[in-house]
């Protein structure tokens, strides 16, 4: 069984991403949406924590939310891929259960 976790908060103000990273099981996917996409930034104080999990977890950022916030792929950590809403739906269908980190 694998879970899709969604994180929608900035890691710089709320601990959702950190908590999600600590609870997700190997093989799970974390999708960063809304303000959650700030967790994908490279060179931030939490980048290393996120980067260390890439590989055992898939970490994906939602492109429409990145674009809205002026963030393109060059600004995010290597190993984090991006997707659109169709991809979001596909991820949800592909995983056994979806858990939102509100």
């Amino acid at each position: 069984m694998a879970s899709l976790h969604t994180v929608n908060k900035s890691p710089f103000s709320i601990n959702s991403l950190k908590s999600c990273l600590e609870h997700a099981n190997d093989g799970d996917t974390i999708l960063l949406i809304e303000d959650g996409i700030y967790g994908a930034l490279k060179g931030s104080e939490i980048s290393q924590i996120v980067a260390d999990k890439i590989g055992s977890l898939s970490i994906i950022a939602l492109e429409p939310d990145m674009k809205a916030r002026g963030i393109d792929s060059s600004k995010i950590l290597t190993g984090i891929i991006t997707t659109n809403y169709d991809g979001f739906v596909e991820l949800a269908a592909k995983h056994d259960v979806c858990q939102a980190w509100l």
Partner: protein
Amino acid sequence: MSEQVKKFLYVNRKAPYGTIYALESLEVVLIGAAFDQDVSLAFIDDGVFQLTKGQDTKEIGVKNFSPTYRALGDYEVTKLYVEKESLIERGLSTDDLQELTYEDEDDDWAEKPSIRIVSRKEMGELMGNQDVVLSF
């Protein structure tokens, strides 16, 4: 009512009173109990503050719903998983939590604790073994 039994996990990550999520989560749990599903509750991060004893809301004018957790056993909601690390990070121990129990019908109605303290790793595994996860 459906004959299908799914594993439902209610994840509580927020403290009571500052926002309504804890109360409205409890309302879902109480209604959900009538559906005979396999229900577990998880308390992590600030969610552990929901279960502390000694809550007195008189002076803020908000309803104190902490006694309701003690009624969960009567609704056959008997699995309340509380994360050890979340307690420790907040300077809490199990002594700070209400004593919650249920009567086990498979064991001559013996009174048993509903709260199960688990590690973060165990909590992650529990989360990964559900059919429906509702987050509040």
